């Protein structure tokens, strides 16, 4: 399940969807990214998320497909919100179930690392100094690169 949406999501509902009727997977890893108060030196009041409709969904589907090719995964759920978000609001959810915990941990982290590099989303932060487009973080490039080295 992949969704790009303006509305919020519920971790409890996502977890339910990952586990209900699923007796084969003993491991569930979830990641939630939230709007935090301080980023790249600015006090953040909220943010606006722009995306490339059509391409976004394809890019996310490809990332999940790449993860499934690398690891033995059960269920995978990926949600990314767009539009205006306030401080502490949820931005992104990744949930992975699998038989073994290492697969679930690796796949969830891989999906986030690839999303940060390959999915057409752009964040404009509303800061105490005015609106600021978030700059790409080279750490995210390095995070993606590690998966091709260690695989």
């Amino acid at each position: 399940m992949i969704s790009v949406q303006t509305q919020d999501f519920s971790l409890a509902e996502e977890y339910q969807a990952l586990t209900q009727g699923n007796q084969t997977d003993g491991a569930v890893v979830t990641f939630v990214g939230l709007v935090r108060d301080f980023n790249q030196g600015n006090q953040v009041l909220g943010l606006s998320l722009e995306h490339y409709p059509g391409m976004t969904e394809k890019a996310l589907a490809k990332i999940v497909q790449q993860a499934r090719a690398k690891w033995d995964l059960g269920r995978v759920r990926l949600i990314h919100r767009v539009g205006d978000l306030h401080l502490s609001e949820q931005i992104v959810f990744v949930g992975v179930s699998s038989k073994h915990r290492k697969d679930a941990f690796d796949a969830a982290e891989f999906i986030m690392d690839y999303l940060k590099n390959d999915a057409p989303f752009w964040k404009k932060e509303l800061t105490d100094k005015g609106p600021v487009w978030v700059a790409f973080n080279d750490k995210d490039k390095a995070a993606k690169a590690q998966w091709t080295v260690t695989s």
Partner: protein
Amino acid sequence: MIRVLFFAQLKEQLGCEQLDFPSAGIGNLADLKAALTAQGEQWQPLTQTNLMMAINQEMADLEDSVADRDEVAFFPPVTGG
């Protein structure tokens, strides 16, 4: 025609969200970018380094071929998640 889209700060810098550009003489993304930039001073933001590109909603490079009716997008490095 080639449908051309711009996103995020690039869209703001260009003051343009989308346009249709004649495909005549355009072989690849590099050609399209050069033709767009040649339109005038306000298109200089297209020459910034690190711009990303997509053809028909797939990531692409300057050498990738562009044809009539393709959808091309130029945008800054992505910052979602």
